[in-house]
């Protein structure tokens, strides 16, 4: 296995870390995966600072703001991310192509509602690559779409005062040109 530069500790990469979700499910993941979650990494670093003997991963890290469903998806995404990175360690372009391909396939199996959960989980775990990816996915889903479409997508209703919306529509008329049909 290639050198995991993002691994904070020189410990062996076979170390496992246990994560416990808000719905009390327990996930055992490789250290390299867990270290992509900066919130977990931070927890780990703090632990290390407080307890020199730590390193054997018996620590159970509670994640009170993450449910098991999005965490399982994030772990899969993260593993694949690391795998693609390791496979193309010396070719950034190839890595980007593989990653793009994987992300395209990934999105085919994700419902819009799941994206919210995933953004929330990635945001809490401070998993930057995943957060960027999910935000990009939502951005492209609402790009060039009508106001009504975006409302439906986010499950929102207009709460403007009567006449207010029409006024804004007039003011921002330029941004309504060429919008996709719903």
């Amino acid at each position: 296995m290639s050198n995991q530069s993002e691994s904070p500790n020189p410990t062996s990469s076979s170390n496992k870390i246990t994560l416990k979700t808000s719905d009390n499910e327990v996930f055992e993941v490789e250290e390299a995966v867990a270290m992509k979650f900066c919130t977990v990494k931070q927890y780990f670093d703090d632990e290390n600072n407080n307890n020199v003997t730590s390193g054997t991963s018996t620590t159970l890290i509670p994640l009170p703001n993450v449910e098991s469903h999005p965490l399982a998806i994030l772990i899969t995404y993260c593993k694949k991310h690391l795998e693609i990175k390791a496979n193309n360690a010396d070719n950034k372009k190839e890595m980007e192509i593989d990653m793009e391909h994987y992300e395209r396939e990934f999105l085919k199996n994700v419902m819009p509602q799941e994206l919210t959960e995933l953004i929330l989980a990635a945001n809490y775990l401070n998993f930057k690559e995943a957060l960027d990816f999910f935000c990009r996915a939502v951005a492209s889903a609402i790009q060039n779409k009508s106001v009504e479409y975006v409302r439906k997508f986010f499950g929102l209703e207009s709460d403007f005062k009567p006449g207010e919306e029409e006024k804004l529509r007039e003011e921002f008329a330029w941004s309504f040109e060429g919008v996709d049909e719903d």
Partner: protein
Amino acid sequence: MDMDPTVSTRREESDEAKAVNMLKVLPVDCIAKVLSLTTPADACRTSLVSTSFKSVAESNAVWDCFVPPESDYLFSNSSSSSPSSLPISSKKELFLHLCHHPLLIHDGKLSLSLEKKSGKKCYMLSPKDLIIVWIDTPAYWRWTSLPHTRFPEVAELIKVCWLEIRGRINTCILSPATLYAAYLVFKTTTGSYGFESQPIEVEVGLVGGEIHKQTVYLDAYGGRRLRYQIVPRRIGVFNRPLRRIPGLQAPQPQPKENEELNGPKYPKERVDGWLEIELGEFFNRSGKDNGELEMSVLEVNGGNWKGGLIVQGIEIRPKP
């Protein structure tokens, strides 16, 4: 942390609690991040979604991603609320300002503006930023100031035989994944001559890479005349003064494929009253690659005198 943050506090207003309401759960900074990954038109339009969405869609966090850092001083100036500063109180206003008011950068030699819907960058190289052959010879070219130009000085062609104008721009300052086109922005003076039916060679391409050449005409009225005359170029060839190099009577720069397909290219009038002629296209793949894009306008084969042209610059803007 970061979990507080629902944008909306209007939960009580909807009777049936919705199963998923993204905005009620997504942190404000995530919504802002999403919107900053769309376009200015999307961010502007989505402010109609709801009042809470509007406050995110108009936030500086979103619009900061749409304005180039070079323009930041306009914003910080205005926050000092000095009476002379621009009335710009948000990044969104700054963005809209830059769509209509090009910003002079690089010692005033380059102007930067933004395309409203996409937020993509448009530039104009001033004549001071161009290589113009014979520019320092007052009999051939002179510097002049005109109203309604974005640069303090523009270049006026008195007369030359050898017309050569070149501009270069680093591709890293262009917007990524964007098809750009370059245009010569100019005017003809009342005494303009020598351009009628005179093919001009124009080129666009990366320095050291593939160059796309084509032939255009700078004759402002050519487009109109064309409707009445089918073969104006022939006539031009026969009328040419005998000063031309003997033996070069054959039609000069061969008509390029594009000319045969789309007909000869003549200048178009811009909304600002100037004329422009497209020099060619360039697809800027990534914003990181360092390359120099060269654009050029050449008429060095005909050998005839030509004059009466005012060059405002070369504009590079996204092609619709």
